[in-house]
């Protein structure tokens, strides 16, 4: 009976409660994906309890439909139904903030031009009422010519009526006369322009590239955008399609409009705001107190030049503690669980390739995904609380000036700070940055922040090779200074990198900072938990599977093609000996460590390590360090276990193992010189500080940017920088020290 799925698109200004309403309307049936080639998320839900199949699509919040980036362009195309491969939107539901009605009508006036049925959800009606703001919805509906439903998404008020209204609007006639809030003369000129264009042949390269909107000529609304938005995305598309002749016609029509209607930039906003004023005549009753007193009083403290900064610093400290230190507790629990499962498998299966695959490939792979969840959950818990209570925008406001150092805005602060704990949640947190260029620059420098996985490497190298010198009665030690320097290296490199990126690959017009500071409110527990859940789910489903696959592949490269017969035999004998003690067992264990080291040397990984030795010699490294560095490309903390295996200490070492520390101190070149010295230690540390040795981060970048281009770029330039950094460090130190 129901023909096909009916598509309803949800739009609205940021902070109007759109996501909340989407959640209320669609229940738990939400899927997320990306539109091809752009980063905007496609969130699709089903209208719960609907009589027919209704698909609900959530678009990112926007103040207007004037696309200035490819992402915003896609959002407009979703609405106009011109995106290839996407079903046509049959109905637009516009979420409007009742307390800011007039400004929100700017977007409404653009939506009504699309010629699609529109339903207005007048949200936050509760706070409008509690402030004595009276809105005559019937009158507003009559003025606008579309249904208006007062709702409160967070209190679930008016939802049934809205749902019924959506279904009814879907049932009614499809053709909906577009409204024309701009002067008639403008539309006439628009039509003439359209006629002009149809006389032009399309650019051959556009035909070849398959750039072809539905009817050859862009729809009326997109033409209008091409005319009105100087330097906007519609203009770019038009020029691509019609080349120089198109650009000439465009300038001609703009000149005519300016001579007849005044400056182009004023034509749109003057008439839309005048339109909004007309629509709200007699609609807004008693003015009420539009200004939220408590927000001003809180702001007086929270953005105060002393208290504001102190509170901000304290908050950031707490968040950082949580994700850096306290998430260690659940992470330790996950590791314990992983060990427990591995032990179970080990006792149930005989040693061999299959067991190694299950334990070191599969279980370790699952573990390497799950291990990130505590940090992601904690970071997103804080982000969601800060966002929901209204503080997030203030945080960006407080540090915007400081972030100018990176050429970024205040919105990049939290993602970058989180990256000092772990770049994976940090990169995911960049979603709060709506400007694409700023967001990508932040994503690309986030892995330079010294994450917690680098710490063991620093500690091992420092405790083995940095002399224990301290001054000021032990208050300042050389080790401490070196450790701090390592944390700075990343930041120092990140600043010019961001600067360079924004002038080359991410070139474009400067991003507006202009940011709405919403009213403070008590965070809603359900909303907050929902965000945490979504972040974890997105990570596991969309990055986790790749991370898992990568860790199985890496297991294989460290396992094959070496001969493991003797190794598994020794394992069998050790496990078979009842108490696991005694001289014989100790001898077997020593042999097992040697055999494992030999197996690693014989594997693909070990062979690559040997092959690249000439490349790493200038860094002061031997092939063993090379293997360690290569083995830690999947995850940098692996270096410790790899060095443990290479130096026949077994893989169960950590950065404080006396055995490992003395083994690397005693390592010798064939001619008897020690392999490691201060210069080598520093070069290893700098390499680890700068290198993109984290598959998880790269795969999360791939997910967040929706393209392989950026993770590959990150990998290449970070590895190159790491190599150069390590080279310079070694060559300079070796000359200074000797």
């Amino acid at each position, binding site marked *: 009976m129901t023909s096909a799925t009916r598509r309803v698109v949800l739009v609205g200004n940021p902070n109007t409660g759109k996501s909340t309403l989407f959640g209320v309307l669609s229940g738990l049936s939400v899927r997320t994906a990306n539109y091809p080639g752009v980063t905007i998320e496609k969130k699709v839900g089903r209208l719960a309890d609907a009589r027919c199949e209704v698909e609900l699509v959530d678009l990112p919040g926007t103040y207007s439909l004037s696309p200035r980036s490819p992402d915003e362009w896609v959002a407009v195309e979703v609405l106009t139904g011109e995106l290839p491969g996407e079903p046509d939107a049959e109905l637009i539901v516009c979420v409007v903030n009742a307390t800011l009605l007039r400004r929100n009508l700017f977007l409404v006036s653009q939506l009504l031009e699309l010629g699609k049925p529109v339903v207005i959800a007048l949200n936050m009606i509760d706070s409008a009422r509690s402030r004595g703001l009276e809105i005559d919805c019937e009158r507003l509906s009559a003025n606008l010519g579309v249904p208006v439903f007062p709702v409160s998404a967070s209190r679930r008020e008016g939802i049934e009526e809205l749902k019924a209204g959506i279904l009814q609007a879907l049932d009614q006639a499809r053709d909906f006369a577009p409204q024309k809030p701009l002067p008639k003369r403008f539309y006439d000129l628009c039509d003439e322009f359209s006629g002009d264009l149809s006389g032009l042949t399309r650019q051959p390269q556009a035909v070849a590239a398959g750039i072809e909107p539905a009817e050859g000529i862009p729809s009326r609304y997109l033409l209008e955008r091409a005319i009105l938005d100087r330097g906007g995305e519609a203009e770019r598309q038009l020029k691509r399609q019609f080349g120089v002749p198109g650009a000439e016609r465009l300038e001609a029509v703009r000149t005519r409009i300016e001579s007849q209607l005044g400056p182009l*930039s004023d034509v749109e906003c003057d008439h839309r705001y005048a339109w909004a004023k007309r629509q709200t005549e007699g609609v807004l009753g008693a003015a009420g107190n539009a200004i939220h007193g408590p927000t001003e009083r809180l702001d007086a403290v929270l953005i*105060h030049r002393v208290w504001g900064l102190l509170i901000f610093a304290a908050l950031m400290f707490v968040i950082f503690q949580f994700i850096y230190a306290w998430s260690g507790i659940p992470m330790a629990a996950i590791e314990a669980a992983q060990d427990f499962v591995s032990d179970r498998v080990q006792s149930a299966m005989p040693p061999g390739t299959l067991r190694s695959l299950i334990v070191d490939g599969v279980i370790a792979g699952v573990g390497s995904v799950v291990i990130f969840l505590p940090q992601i959950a904690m970071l997103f818990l804080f982000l969601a609380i800060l966002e929901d209570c209204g503080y997030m925008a203030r945080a960006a406001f407080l540090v915007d000036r400081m972030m100018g150092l990176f050429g970024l805005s205040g919105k990049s602060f939290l993602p970058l700070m989180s990256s000092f704990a772990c770049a994976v949640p940090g990169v995911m947190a960049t979603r709060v940055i709506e400007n694409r260029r700023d967001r990508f620059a932040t994503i690309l420098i986030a892995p330079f922040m010294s994450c917690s996985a680098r710490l063991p490497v620093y500690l091992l190298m420092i405790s083995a090779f940095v002399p224990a010198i301290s001054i000021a009665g032990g208050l300042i030690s050389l080790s401490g200074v070196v450790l701090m320097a390592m944390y700075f290296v990343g930041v120092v490199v990140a600043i010019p990198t961001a600067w360079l990126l924004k002038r080359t690959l991410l070139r474009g*017009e400067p991003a507006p900072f202009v940011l709405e500071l919403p009213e403070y409110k008590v965070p809603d527990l359900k909303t907050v938990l929902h965000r945490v859940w979504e972040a974890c789910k997105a990570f596991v489903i969309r990055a986790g599977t790749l991370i898992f696959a990568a860790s199985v592949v890496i297991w294989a490269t460290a396992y094959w093609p070496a001969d493991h017969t003797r190794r598994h035999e020794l394992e069998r004998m050790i496990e078979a000996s009842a108490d696991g003690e005694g001289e014989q067992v100790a001898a077997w264990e020593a042999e097992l460590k040697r055999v494992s080291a030999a197996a690693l040397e014989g594997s693909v990984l070990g062979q690559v390590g040997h092959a690249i030795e000439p490349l790493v010699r200038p860094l002061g490294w031997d092939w063993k360090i090379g293997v360690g560095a290569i083995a830690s490309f999947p995850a940098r903390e692996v270096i410790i276990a790899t060095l443990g295996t290479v130096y026949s200490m077994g893989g169960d070492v950590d950065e404080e193992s006396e055995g490992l520390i003395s083994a690397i101190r005693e390592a010798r070149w064939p001619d008897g010189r020690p392999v490691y010295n201060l210069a080598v230690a520093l070069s290893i540390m700098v390499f680890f500080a700068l290198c993109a040795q984290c598959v998880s981060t790269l795969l999360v970048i791939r997910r967040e940017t929706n393209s392989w281009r950026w993770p590959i770029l990150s990998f290449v330039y970070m590895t190159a920088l790491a190599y150069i950094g390590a080279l310079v460090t070694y060559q300079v130190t070796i000359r200074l020290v000797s």
Partner: protein
Amino acid sequence: MLTLDQLRPGEVGQIVRIEGVDGISCRLREMGFVPGESVQFLTTAPLGDPLKCMIQGSRIALRGSEARRVLLAEPISQAAPLAQKAPGLAPRLSTTGP
């Protein structure tokens, strides 16, 4: 000409024009900075740069470089946001404290 960044805390000005035709000026217009509207300067961030103002009932943060594009007629009053009922009584009340 007077621009938004030159106002003192609490002062209100009437917008005459927004400079520019790029993304920043479009964003300003969409967010309610249009000729004829009144805008109240509230405070600056601790480090002196973005500033906070009130327009059409919403609080907006914008950088000094962006505020310089908002051209104003002379300030018309100096009402502090919480003293709206008696604008004349609080000529110099600032929201930043001392």
